[in-house]
């Protein structure tokens, strides 16, 4: 097996993994603060991918430019979803939350089916089939741009939580719910803001992802599952963990395809999940409960 082959496959795995990481970041942010597991996460990304396709096919807006309107709309939708539907369930048992979000996911899949039909759609940007030569290595241009944008978006989310007052307030809510209430923070607003941010993350990931894969309404559940695997491997609630998990899953899938058989890609992801759960249940960068 040549260096060229291994190098190409690993680079593709890392670049895809960064986009996966951004997608899972949204899930991690929501769980880390609101303590609700978003079972409609993949479906939200699918909806964002369709939004990017519509913007491209209708007005010729490149998916990288489409990030701005799509993120704004999904932030607003996420905020409203949390305030109107999810918030009453926050104090209810976990199985109620689970059923609620599964119902939201099913409604989203069927709404997308009604709106767009079952067929796969994609965007045909000029650079879609381009690749860069780095010595013997070939790097897919669209994948590189998508990974770069995913890194920028992730950095923006990290910065928000680290350097802004609102971000610090949200972290305070996550660290000590009662304490945050005592000091007068508007918990409901901050929770909704967090859900909006998580939705914005997954929307940005959707805009990147549409450059890498064709979108169908049925894509959602597979990505919800993948996001779970990533955040559990990286550490539920840990933002750097989500990115690390994304890269690990991307690379492990690529490696499985290369060293075992391409059909075993998902199998290796789940094997990695089992190993992490056995050896480090809180995930690679997660905190012990």
């Amino acid at each position: 097996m040549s260096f060229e082959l291994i190098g190409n496959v690993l680079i593709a795995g890392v670049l895809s993994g960064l986009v996966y990481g951004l997608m899972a970041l949204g899930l991690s942010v929501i769980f880390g603060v609101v303590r609700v597991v978003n079972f409609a996460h993949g479906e939200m990304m699918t909806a964002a991918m369709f939004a990017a396709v519509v913007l491209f096919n209708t007005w010729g807006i490149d998916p990288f430019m489409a990030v701005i309107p799509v993120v704004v709309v999904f932030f607003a939708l996420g905020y409203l979803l949390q305030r109107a539907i999810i918030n009453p369930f926050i104090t209810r048992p976990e199985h109620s939350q689970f059923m609620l979000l599964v119902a939201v996911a099913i409604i989203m899949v069927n709404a997308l089916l009604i709106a767009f039909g079952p067929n796969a759609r994609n965007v045909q940007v000029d650079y879609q089939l381009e690749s860069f030569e780095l010595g013997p290595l070939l790097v897919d241009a669209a994948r590189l741009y998508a990974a770069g944008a995913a890194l920028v978006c992730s950095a923006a989310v990290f910065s928000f939580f680290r350097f802004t007052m609102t971000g610090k307030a949200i972290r305070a809510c996550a660290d000590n719910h009662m304490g945050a209430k005592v000091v007068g923070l508007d918990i409901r607003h901050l929770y909704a803001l967090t859900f909006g941010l998580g939705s914005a993350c997954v929307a940005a990931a959707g805009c990147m992802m549409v450059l890498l894969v064709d979108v169908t309404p049925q894509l959602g559940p597979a990505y919800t599952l993948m996001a779970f695997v990533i955040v559990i491997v990286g550490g539920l609630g840990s933002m750097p963990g989500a990115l690390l998990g994304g890269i690990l899953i991307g690379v492990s899938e690529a490696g499985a395809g290369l060293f075992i058989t391409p059909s075993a890609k998902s199998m290796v992801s789940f094997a990695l999940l089992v190993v992490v759960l056995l050896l480090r249940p809180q995930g690679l960068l997660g905190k012990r409960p």
Partner: protein
Amino acid sequence: MNTIEKTSLATLDVGVSDATEGGADAGRRRFVGAVGAAAIVSSSSLMRPAWAQSAKLKVGVLLPRSGVQAFVGQSCQFGADVAPAVLKSLFGVDIELMNADTETNVDTARSRAERLISEGAQVLVGAFDSGASLAIAQVAEQKGVPFVINIAAAPQITEQGYKFTFRNFPTSVDLVVNGLGLARDLFLATGTAPRTAVFMHVNDTFGQANKAAIASILPKLDYLPFKLLDTIAYDPAAKDLTVEVARAKATKADFLLLVCRLNDAIILRREMVKQRWNPMGIIGPGNPGMYEAQFYAALGKLSDHCISNVPWYDPKSVVTKAIDAQMRKQFPKEKLMYHALNVGFTFESIQIVADAFKRSRSNDPKVLAEAIRQTNIASRMMLGGPIKFNAKGQVEGIASACIQNFNQRPMVVLPAASAEAKPVFPVPGYVRA
């Protein structure tokens, strides 16, 4: 005395005479026989109105109209949708379609088949996919309802001893034998002799059947100049084929032998361009994907020169012309050329059950199954001899043609007698590895 009276008297005379000769038993037997004959005559005349009342055959059509195979399923559906009008105008048979979506899912295919039967379907046709067809065949056997497969190649479907399952489509073994034979003809026609190939296939029932067929047949075909360097299986629902294509490229094979479906074929072709892999060509030995309307729509010029060795249609047939006209009427935006194989075999599966219905004058599933077994249809859309089922319920001798894409449309390049264009191999842009 008029004629009727004479006849009656003559009959009576004979009856009296028999009674005299054979005794009372013989007379009673004759009487019972006469009553029986009258009953048969009157019952057959009673059957006529009954036939007239249920003169429509309810055909359950199972196709993957959503999910990964949605494009092909919808393409097949055109063949079903035009069937009632074409069968009525050409053969005078009335049918009623009961459509069901298998959602590209074997379990859904099974449950939809059960539901169609419970809702009154008298025969089933479908289901494009081998896995789904196998599941439906099991239901058809349990319920005793005939099932005519439109497209599905896994050999085991007609190797189970099923009594109600029929297939008018080549098995994967036949497809591969025909496909590899045409590959030899292609190399001869273009004066090429590729020495190596890499084999990529979808990892589903159909792909596995093709893999097994190639593994068993290829070593025996000493007239083919190439050997396989690697075999790469991939998920038919794959969203990304980067690794698979990188592995295939790394083999530095002369050409790609590809058993694909539609969505993966599009993804794979794009990935080949991204990875700058330009082999002598891509040859499908008997699979869908590279001649479908969506393949051209999604890839544009990148779809050109891909080769599929598949069963094809006769553009001059009366049935083809009727189907083409009906498609233009019902679906003005669609062209038969881009759906030919899917429409052709789906239509023929319904033609077979309609023909059996016409001959048997019954919609009893068992009678229909027996009538299907006796099928002998010469007037058809697809190339090949008449449609006749062997003892296993399989139509034999369906030929393939070598189809190459030019200017984003499929064209027959082999056999030479039916060729619309000359084959091109190696394809333009070929870079020796």
